[in-house]
């Protein structure tokens, strides 16, 4: 307990950075993932090919490799300079958006074709069909896996600890410098993550139960 109480500042700022990283890259990857999903369901073959290539490549690349690329190799391309935090946000966003894209796309695909055909037959415009017919139904099958993806993003932020971002995974370095018990410190970090993840898992289960529609 003393490890936690003596270094409360350290733990709070660590988890604060983790949450900041999670929120920023979460929002950005939701945006990018939705754009990618739009590309993947678009009627234009070129856009579909781009979306598919991106998703295939990124989903088969380890996150650590994306991080190493942005922290060590990317500066040699001399495009725009990033600090460590921005690099972490970029790496997490690029990685997570591929998974968000798949969740959104498969959600749209669960809507029966008849629904859209019926709405077109009624003369609804594309926007009306999307907002009144397709998206409300797609939401139900999108949200539970989306929450799981965001949980995974929250856990993945710890990879940034290896790349000079002072977040929860980095607490260990600070503790070992101060000569504190690293073992107990890491147990507290793990407990912190369980506390953060459990409510999200519960939320996901509740949504899944409530929204699982029988078709």
């Amino acid at each position, binding site marked *: 307990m003393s490890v936690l109480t003596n270094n409360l500042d350290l733990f709070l700022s660590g988890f604060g950075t983790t949450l900041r990283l999670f929120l920023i890259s979460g929002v950005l990857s939701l945006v990018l993932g939705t754009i990618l999903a739009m590309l993947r369901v678009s009627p234009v073959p070129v856009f579909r090919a781009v979306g598919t290539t991106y998703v295939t490549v990124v989903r*088969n690349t380890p996150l*650590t490799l994306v991080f190493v*690329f942005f922290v060590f190799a990317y500066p040699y391309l001399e495009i725009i300079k990033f600090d460590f935090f921005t690099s972490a946000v970029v790496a997490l966003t690029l990685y997570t958006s591929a998974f968000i894209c798949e969740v959104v796309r498969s959600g*749209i695909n669960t809507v029966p074709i008849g629904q859209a055909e019926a709405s077109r037959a009624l003369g609804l415009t594309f926007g009306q069909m999307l907002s009144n017919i397709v998206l409300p139904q797609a939401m139900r099958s999108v949200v539970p896996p989306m929450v*799981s993806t965001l949980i995974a993003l929250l856990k993945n932020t710890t990879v940034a600890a290896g790349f000079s971002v002072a977040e929860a995974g980095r607490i260990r370095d600070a503790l070992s410098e101060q000569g504190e018990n690293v073992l107990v410190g890491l147990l507290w970090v793990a407990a912190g993550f369980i506390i953060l993840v*459990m409510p999200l898992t519960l939320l996901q289960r509740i949504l899944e139960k409530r929204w699982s529609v029988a078709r």
Partner: protein
Amino acid sequence: MSSVLFDIPGPRARMRYRTLAIVGALAIAALVGYVVYRFADTGQFTARKWEFIQYEQIQIGLVTALGRTLSAFGLGAVLAMIFGAIFAAARLSDHAWIRTPAAVIVEGFRAIPLVIMMFFFYYGLPSAGIKMSAFTAVVLGLTLYNGSVLAEVFRAGINSLPRGQSEAAYALGMRKTQVMVLVLLPQALRAMLPTIVSQLVVLLKDTALGFLITYEELLNWGRQLGSQLQFGRPYVPTMLTVAAIYIGMCLLLTWFANYLEKRNRRNKKVIKLDNNKAEGIVLGESMGAGVPPGAGTL
């Protein structure tokens, strides 16, 4: 293409799509062209940056590093499957004193980030007097995390078999163990095989986390070679090489998972599961290359 959102195009829509295709292709070509230009402009394609690959020492280093990645993957995969099988059985047990601790362990290990687990084994345990190599720490972390996910996959697989299967088996007078081993498990395994292989892709990707605890695997090889001044700091070339190897290996496994799934769909012996719950677990919880839920329904 998704026919949910778009009708079959008429002449005007076709024209519009064609224009969009040309504009899009130009935009993408411009983007790719700019990136390639940046690569070329900073000299990433010069022979000097790539000459490292000609040295025998470095080639041997690459193969050794790849071997380390694969051995962590192989051992981790086997142990994770054993762990998953044991804990899935425990969570399906009729006795609450087995079921509850198993549930706590599985849920706990799924909630803790794998990096923190590896840090715990590699940096934390030595202060309690237990020292382990980076390899052991990586394999242990992979086993506990992916084993827990696999336990959920196995459990979901068995739970989503039609009720009639176990009811019929019980009616024939089988014990619970017999019902599990002879009736439920073979069917569930067969139906779950693509999902399990997808989880193995995640495991393979996660071996790269060993980089963070100085396990000398493939990524570490690329990072160390990239910093060598005598080859002109070839970070970009080594990272491209490493990425190509990882993507190649993962694509092979993904392709294998897809092949198994296609075979399952053809095979009449495989019972179609009630829902895609297990696939949802793999997709969401571990960000794997799992089959997205609902992908099989259309």
